[in-house]
């Protein structure tokens, strides 16, 4: 299984020379099967445009897994090339709301006045699936998802192939309301998905100072992300969903200090566009 980051930025695309190293595109991750034949697309921020252009015309099926429907996770949908390939089988997976189906929610964006092309007018063969799902088979992958702590219906995903797993928790506030360490005994969201995962892609948006005024916004501090990775005994963690205010130099400084302060037991880095992991 190969994992490639196509967009690492949270909240808002931030292109420019000051973000050239880690990237300015909003969140998108590609998971490709070991044989290279099957592609899962995790979220469709602006990074999905570049990913979509690499999918060959001979591809028969593409699956897009949406963690939730905030704009930084769906803004690229309308620019995802496979949507416009007649007859191509495209499956979109994501959470409904308590009162509205996923298709209806997606249609709010994929329709005028926000977007000129309606969901129903796409030439691909589109199928919409609602999550959470448990042990769903998509090609060679086993896909597990569950709701996590973040405003509005939001899921994380665990994708496994041939005994290796990547866990994707791009927007996750595991310490909401906590004054001490993360709770054990099943009281922290995301732990089921992330337990002993080979690669944890986890929200690491805020410094402690930023978080103090953004409690409940659905994101993790750098330190809580490391604490979560230790709690679930992840084997490697990539900090993800970079804050728009963190340019390359700032992010490098924050992560260097984080590693000094926490001495994590697994490799930890800040994800950058184009970064690839082979599991």
């Amino acid at each position, binding site marked *: 299984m190969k994992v490639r980051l196509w967009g690492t930025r949270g909240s808002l695309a931030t292109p420019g020379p000051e973000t050239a190293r880690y990237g300015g595109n909003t969140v998108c991750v590609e998971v490709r099967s070991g044989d290279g034949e099957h592609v899962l697309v995790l979220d469709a921020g602006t990074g999905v445009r570049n990913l979509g252009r690499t999918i060959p015309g001979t591809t028969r099926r593409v699956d897009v897994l949406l963690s939730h429907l905030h704009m930084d996770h769906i803004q690229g949908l309308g620019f995802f090339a496979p949507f416009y390939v007649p007859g191509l089988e495209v499956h979109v997976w994501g*959470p*409904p709301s*308590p009162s509205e189906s996923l298709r209806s929610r997606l249609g709010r964006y994929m329709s005028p006045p926000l977007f000129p092309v309606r969901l129903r007018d796409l030439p691909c063969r589109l199928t919409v699936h*609602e999550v*959470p799902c448990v042990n769903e088979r998509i090609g060679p992958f086993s896909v597990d998802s*569950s*709701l*996590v*702590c973040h405003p509005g*219906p939001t899921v994380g995903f665990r994708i496994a192939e041939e005994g290796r797993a990547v866990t994707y928790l791009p927007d996750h506030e595991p310490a*909401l*309301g*906590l004054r001490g360490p993360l709770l*054990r*005994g*099943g*009281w*922290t*969201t*995301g*732990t*089921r998905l992330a*337990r002993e995962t080979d690669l944890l892609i986890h929200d690491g948006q805020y410094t402690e100072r930023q978080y103090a005024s953004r409690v409940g916004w659905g994101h993790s501090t750098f330190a809580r992300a490391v604490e979560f990775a230790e709690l679930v005994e992840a084997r490697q963690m990539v900090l993800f969903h970079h804050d728009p205010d963190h340019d390359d130099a700032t992010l490098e400084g924050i992560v260097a200090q984080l590693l000094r302060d926490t001495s994590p037991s697994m490799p930890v880095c800040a994800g950058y566009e184009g970064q690839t992991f082979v599991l």
Partner: protein
Amino acid sequence: MEVQKEVEIILTRQLASYLATPAFLVDPRGTLLFYNEPAEVLLGQRFEETGELSVEAWGTRFEPTGADGVPLPVESLPLVMALRTRHPAHGEFWITSADGQRRHLLLTAMPLAGQAGRFLGALALLWEGPGK
């Protein structure tokens, strides 16, 4: 291996941990999942000391009775009724807390429905009544 709770239950616990109103959280089978510090005062026992308890255990541990002192069957307690009927339930009764105090309690229990209508249990809010 520990089983992760549903996110709605986790958030309900977080909410309860901030409330000054005594709160008591159970799963669909009535198993006690959490009660907050104000509830600890009423029950005379810290949650860390009780941990998770079956409905039979917590339904009898505090010896609930009516005003006349006659023991109440577990199934008549409002929290248990809310679980069974999946409708809000309200009632009042007397307990003997773990520190030996006799307390008059008023309790309102709300069933909890999560995403996709999943039934997740119930949250009870308690008040100490005027009765002795």
